[in-house]
């Protein structure tokens, strides 16, 4: 550990234990970080698809998604740019619900989440099952703002937030890991904030 001359910071003692290493609490702010132009997606043409290595490839309309069993996540989100947002509430459906309908084949090991903009991000299948991932359209009881991925985004809060694809269009199940947009640009393939897996090789 190399101490920076003159730096005392905001103090380790007062640090919220919910913050992973190297993260700070952004409080009520929710910074916007996007590499693309913010798209304007209408809910009447929006869709969500599960495809690839599944028995029953399925596409849901906005209404059909809302007819699935609702689910809510309350907890913390962590951006690789070092902010964390604590105690956020999102509502939508569990990824388990849409996977149960599409029925992954035994050979499926990974997913590539893709957005309506062409954004992609890769995840092990095990990171989006058993209550760890959602497709969400409500934030704090209100429609998810477009700059934060509305009308709907993926939510995988135990990984860095670039994995929670904005403007999500679907999941493609694969039998191998296929790096997505940021992962091809030097970011980590898994992105566990508690292990500080920020960049390739971390």
């Amino acid at each position: 550990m190399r101490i920076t001359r003159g730096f005392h910071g905001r103090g380790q003692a007062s640090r919220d234990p919910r913050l992973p290493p190297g993260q700070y609490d952004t409080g009520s702010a929710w910074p916007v970080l996007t590499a693309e132009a913010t798209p304007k997606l209408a809910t009447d043409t929006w869709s969500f698809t599960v495809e690839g290595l599944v028995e029953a490839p399925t596409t849901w309309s906005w209404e059909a998604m809302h007819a699935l069993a609702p689910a809510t996540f309350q907890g913390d989100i962590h951006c690789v740019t070092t902010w964390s947002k604590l105690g956020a509430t999102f509502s939508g459906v569990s990824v388990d619900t849409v996977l149960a309908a599409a029925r992954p084949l035994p050979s499926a090991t990974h997913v590539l989440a893709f957005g309506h903009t062409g954004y992609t991000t890769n995840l092990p299948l095990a990171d989006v099952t058993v209550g760890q991932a959602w497709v969400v359209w409500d934030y704090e009881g209100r429609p998810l703002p477009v700059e934060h991925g509305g009308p709907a985004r993926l939510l995988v809060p135990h990984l860095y937030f670039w994995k929670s694809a904005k403007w999500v269009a679907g999941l493609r199940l694969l039998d191998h890991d296929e790096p997505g947009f940021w992962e091809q640009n030097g970011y980590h393939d898994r992105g566990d904030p508690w292990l500080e897996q920020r960049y390739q090789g971390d």
Partner: protein
Amino acid sequence: MTDQPSPVPSLGGWQTATVIDIHPETPNAKTFRLALPTPSPHLAGQHYLVRLTAPDGYVASRSYSVASPPQDTVEIELTVERLPDGEVSSFLHEVVMPGDELEVRGPIGGWFVWRGEAPALLVGGGSGVVPLMAMLRLARRTGRAHLLRLVVSARSPADLYYAGELPGPETTIIYSRTAPPGWARPPGRLNRDDLTAALAPEATTYVCGSPGFADAATDLLIGAGVAPGRIRVERFGPTG
């Protein structure tokens, strides 16, 4: 977003840089010139992380864009805007002096980069001009300034970064609140006419600034007929 990015060199670990020089760009921005013990070539548009460590082990790190062009690799320049209540930017502005050591890691980023080969339109607001400055410097040094058009928005002449170096045939400077006496364009927010004059059909567009500026600029660009897939955006949030 259909371009496949070229591979980015793998990122090294943290290194201890020495602050060589600090100079102000505006009342709220300073440029830090750092000497790197383990230099690594960067691409115009990439950024570095700066990490501060307190005696009790508390750590804070933030990302800052490289302003210097890729040919300078032993030393790099990071321009840092001082943000209200910015834990790291305030420390860099108030405490750090030449001779100090700072832990840095980089260069980072493979999307918001210009490799100096293809036509590009650069649109920057406020501190968002920093990564674009690395691109402009690269273009001028390599005799390829004709490939670039740069549109920069600043609140007033005092808020314009790199004021002595920016002006040139490839740059358009607009002032949103206060313009210098005799400036042809009246002060006001970026508008479609500002961008239309700089459009080139085959150019990749790089937009950098606050979220509000970036959204306004991308809306104007799309309204002017630029395909969303040709627009790359870097938003500078209140993360400093």
